[in-house]
């Protein structure tokens, strides 16, 4: 029983981290059909910059803020320098964002060195709760809490605010949004920056969770995020939460019961979804 609970919590926590990465990716794709292969790089930058701010200020909270800010700034640069010049050309987009991913990853090593960096859980989040016989690690609960909080905030914004309406409308029909007098490119820039900030948030939360950070982590998580985006449906925000949880849980259970298959299962899931249901599992529209 304890094992099952812990596996579930673990899976949920990983799922939330993937969700933070995938939610931005999916909205960016839905809005402008841009698939950003550099998104994982922003995740890694979030982790490094967050840990750096944390060690500098001694406050984990400031570390998180620093990561979010770094993510938003990098998002701005990416959109202006990398995405804008190749709007509409898919092949160029794929090529250039992958190239930028490479640059982002290597830049990390230039700034912070090529070795792994240790990251600590802040004291007030360290340790675990005891529920009867069951021990639950605090920090994992914290990640799950933040994940649901972010989902709640963004879901509210998407459903209830004007900018959220515009984003949803843009995902459905971007020509019409423009014909109604809205500068969709600016909306897209905001979404891109927000998506980058979310990815960076995911990165900094991941750091104490895994204990170490390394430059290639961006790429590893990006693959999971792509899987989630495909399973959840391109452009679907809530779909990406369900899919991220699914992928997180599957990874967690598999890693324990059938370790050889843990990563393979998710990839196979994605392949099957792409081949038989390319619009995603969690989208209603056929």
């Amino acid at each position: 029983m304890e094992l099952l609970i812990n596996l579930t919590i673990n899976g949920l926590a990983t799922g939330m981290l993937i969700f933070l990465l995938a939610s931005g990716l999916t909205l960016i794709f839905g809005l402008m059909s841009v698939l950003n292969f550099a998104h994982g790089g922003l995740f890694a930058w979030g982790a490094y910059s967050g840990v750096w701010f944390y060690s500098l200020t001694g406050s984990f909270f400031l570390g998180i803020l620093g990561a979010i800010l770094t993510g938003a700034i990098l998002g701005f640069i990416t959109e202006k320098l990398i995405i804008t010049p190749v709007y509409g050309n898919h092949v160029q987009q794929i090529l250039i964002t992958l190239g930028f991913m490479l640059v982002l990853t290597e830049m990390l090593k230039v700034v912070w060195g090529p070795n792994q960096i240790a990251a600590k859980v802040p004291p007030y989040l360290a340790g675990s709760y005891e529920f009867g016989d069951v021990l639950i690690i605090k920090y994992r609960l914290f990640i799950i809490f933040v994940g649901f909080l972010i989902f709640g905030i963004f879901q509210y914004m998407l459903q209830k605010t004007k900018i959220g309406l515009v984003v949803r409308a843009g995902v459905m029909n971007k020509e019409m949004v423009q014909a109604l007098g809205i500068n969709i490119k600016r909306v897209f820039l905001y979404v891109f920056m927000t998506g980058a900030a979310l990815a960076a948030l995911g990165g900094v939360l991941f750091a104490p969770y895994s204990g170490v950070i390394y430059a290639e982590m961006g790429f590893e998580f990006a693959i999971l995020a792509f899987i989630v985006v495909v399973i959840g449906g391109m452009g679907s925000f809530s779909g990406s939460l369900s899919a991220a949880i699914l992928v997180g849980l599957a990874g967690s259970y598999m890693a324990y019961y059938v370790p050889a298959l843990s990563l393979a299962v998710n990839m196979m899931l994605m392949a099957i979804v792409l081949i038989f249901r390319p619009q995603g599992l969690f989208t209603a529209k056929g």
Partner: protein
Amino acid sequence: MKRKFQLNHYLLVVIVLALVIFPFVSDSRTWTILLTQIFIFSILAMSYDILLGYTGIVSFGHAMFFGMGAYTTAVMLKRIEPTMGMFILSIGVGMLLAGLISFFIGLLTLRLKSHFFAMLTLAVSGLFLVLAEKWRTLTQGNDGFTFKAPEFFKDRVMFYLVALACLVLVYLFLRRFVNSPFGRVLVAVRENEQRTRSLGFNPLHYKVIASVVAGVIASLAGSLYAVSLRFVNTSVLTMDITLDALLMTIIGGVGTLIGPIVGAGVIELAQHYLSGLAKEYPIFERWIIFFGIVYILAVVFFPRGIVGTVREQIWKRKTKKDGSKPVPKKEVL
């Protein structure tokens, strides 16, 4: 036109001859090894360009076929016997495997749109990497294993010549391939898939065959690579290999066959020199950044790469001189 055409051919023959003579006049071991490496990666990059440049498909899973060749050869030389015959047989087996697998993967995935295809190839090649890491009895995972190369290759020069011969053969074969009616349809698919379909060609059919050809040749490059190192580990299946092929193709020039070869040369040489410089200036340890930046600039400003841009300039100058209109050109070089 006719004379220029032949001039190019002479130039190629001269370069190849120079390369054949090179190891006999120079006894630089470093250069022999470096050039061998360039030949092998040229083969890989050319195969990648069949997808990217000629058919307009972005695959992030090309390392899968390279790795398949590398492992097939390594395992067969290690487990059975390190002879020349086994080496040739293993190349054949690797190519067959790569051909079959690229055929089935292509059939299932090539109908997808570019984004999805790129993601899926990324995932599938990831699967192969995981497979290789878990199947330790065969591959010994990330630690890898060493093996003996056939006696004939004890002399590095022999292997150098074999790699060069493979490069020339692959080049000649691919040039025929892309200039054939089949190759023309591939370019048509790249330019306008809808229209190609309406002309009665099934784009999927052509894309699948292009990906089989690319996969088979990448496997050959992998076989040679394994023998050149006499060692193999899972790094042959990683994204780095695909990235190398991508950088070489983009920087050298997509949609040409010479481009990837030039790109392979430029990148391998630069890697060699820059990592030499790194001993004094640590920034050069991150040499890949420079290529990343050059690559990004190339995608935006020189999408035709070195060879394509040079050709374009020559072409412009020529058409300016005689005032004739540019004609869509055949693959000359």
